[in-house]
């Protein structure tokens, strides 16, 4: 499409089409609705199908159904809708159905601030659905990244056979930048079974932690349930078998933490760091450059893949750092995760969730106070 002026939400829709999206189900909610509007128009031209469902619970059910049928699927929503999707996201994790869920964050709780930005869903994205689980959560900060990381979200969903959450926020969603998307991108398809149907076990660990997945309508008939199950797919409650299942579906993500991980670290040898995500990280990068010009030795840590949390990479640069400044648009969420890997006394935190973005000036003030011993 050449160089053009594109918004974050448009880039997500275009990235999904590029990645091979074939089925979208969603329910309108600000500030995500334009993703659905674009796909309603464009998806049929790419050989796919769109449906507007009766609510977000239904949207999540429909994309898992279509995923089991063999398609690459996606939905997009915002906070309130994301809350409604959580039960079925857990189902998707349990039955290992690849799919992508876009959550364009807005102010909360409840209806909150529908047209204002926030980062209030960071922990909900990680821990929202009940029970022990791992989930991949991605968070771009530019229009180009919205495109690239949407493709990555689909690829990770297919490789690890799991729902992937793509976070965005109201600012990244409606930010417009001039971009030229690549024509050729690396696309991954899920692994299909190669054994004869009579030897097929839908949840086997014979081929690694991710079992090959047949399409509905193929000769590989199998049973799928949200109940704890063994490699045959049928319910069990034997403690050893339950343990084996949970360790496999969490292990397939934790064991591949580094392969899945994607983090931007500016000036990794710096003495001090700023940690920021999404819209906040844009201002943070500016502050880092500005302060460095003033002679302050500071770098930036910005995970593009937020979960599994990039513990090793963050430890590597922060172990010898003096101060780590964490900025987030909420009353303190990702800070709890960072405290596990960075010594509390090094951390200075600043957040707000009143609908206003954290400005570079605010960040500079917090940083200067922190560096001056406060």
């Amino acid at each position, binding site marked *: 499409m050449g160089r053009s002026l594109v918004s974050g939400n448009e880039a997500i829709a275009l990235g999904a089409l590029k990645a091979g999206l*074939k*089925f979208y*189900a969603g329910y309108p909610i600000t500030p995500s609705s334009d993703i659905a509007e674009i796909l309603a128009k464009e998806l*049929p*031209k790419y*050989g*796919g*199908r769109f*449906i507007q*469902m*009766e*609510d977000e*619970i*239904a*949207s*999540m*059910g*429909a*994309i*898992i*159904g*279509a*995923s*089991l*049928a*063999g*398609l690459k*699927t996606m939905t997009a929503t915002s906070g309130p809708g994301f809350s409604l999707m959580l*039960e*079925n996201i857990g*189902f998707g994790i349990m039955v290992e159905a690849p799919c992508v869920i876009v959550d364009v964050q807005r102010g909360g709780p409840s209806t909150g601030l529908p047209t204002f930005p926030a980062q209030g869903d960071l922990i909900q994205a990680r821990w929202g659905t009940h029970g022990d689980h791992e989930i991949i959560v991605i968070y771009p900060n530019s229009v180009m990244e919205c495109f690239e990381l949407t493709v990555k979200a689909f690829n990770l969903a297919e490789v690890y056979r799991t729902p992937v959450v793509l976070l965005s926020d109201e600012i990244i969603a409606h930010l417009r930048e001039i971009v030229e998307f690549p024509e050729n991108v690396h696309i991954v398809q899920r692994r299909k079974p190669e054994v004869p149907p009579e030897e097929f076990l839908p949840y086997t660990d014979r081929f690694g932690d991710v079992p090959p997945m047949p*399409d*509905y*309508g*193929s*000769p590989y*008939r*199998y*049973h*799928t*349930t*949200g*109940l704890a199950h063994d490699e045959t797919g*049928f*319910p069990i409650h034997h403690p050893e078998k339950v343990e084996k299942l949970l360790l496999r579906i969490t292990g397939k993500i934790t064991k591949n933490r580094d392969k899945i991980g994607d983090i931007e670290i500016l000036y990794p040898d710096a003495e001090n760091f700023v940690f920021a995500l999404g819209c906040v990280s844009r201002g943070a990068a500016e502050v880092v450059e500005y302060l460095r010009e003033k002679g302050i030795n500071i770098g930036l840590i910005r995970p593009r893949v937020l979960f599994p949390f990039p513990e090793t990479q963050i430890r590597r640069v922060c172990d010898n750092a003096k101060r780590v400044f964490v900025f987030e648009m909420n009353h303190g969420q990702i800070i709890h995760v960072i405290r596990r890997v960075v010594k509390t006394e090094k951390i200075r935190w600043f957040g707000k969730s009143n609908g206003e973005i954290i400005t570079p000036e605010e960040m500079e003030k917090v940083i200067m106070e922190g560096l001056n011993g406060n």
Partner: protein
Amino acid sequence: MVTEIARKYLRKDKFPSIWCAGCGHGIILGSLLRSVDRLGLDKNKVVLISGIGCSGRTPGYVDFFTLHTTHGRALTFATGVKIARPELTVIVVMGDGDAAAIGGNHLIHSARRNIDITAIVYNNSIYGMTGGQVSPTTGQGYYATTAPYGQFEYPFDIAQLAIGAGATFVARGSSYHVPMLDNLIKKGIEHKGFALIDVITTCPVNFGRRNKITQDPYENLKFVSNIVVPKSKYDQMGEEERKGKFPMGILKEEIKPELTEVYRQKEEEMGVRYEV
């Protein structure tokens, strides 16, 4: 004949089932299997989907593609499967709480869309698996663990609800009238569009026992046989006589373009092709 069908379609190593002795669910499953057999469907091309509850365990016993989903949401998963692969026969089984309480929204919207799904409701007016709580189809005055003084509220008529929501095939059967049920399910699967079959059935343990029917399976089936009346007879009855009775048979049958067919036609008009 029965054993032949059992051999062909059941996952025998999954038996005995979790259903209590005397439960009506197995009777409905029998009807479902005979219908699929009479239609000569390829097992690889049938997807049987359920929600949560006693009815939800049906798919586990049957050798199709089977999907046991979340409570009330079976129709949403079925919608995704059907739009993705319209060539598959998609059958959904639900309980009354599953279909009309937690899943009520999905029921009316699936009916409105006229998507080619056959939805069978195992309607025993009680939450059986969770131990006998009141359901949206429990009649006024009937007892449940959460209606210890008798149900105060009015019940849903699931068949009328589906008719009102635009379902193009709506029937009611019972687990007492088995040959008729075989026929209704077969017709529902054959119907191109959303088909709902409301099957009045029994829960001897949690409904019968609490409602002076006793826990005896036959007494419960007799109770069912007394509350359903063939539609032709029901139509002749007066208002007073109809109280507490349900018409049985095909209640609505309408030919109307089906959703995935409309997708296909629109795609053809647009000059695009849906490719899996």
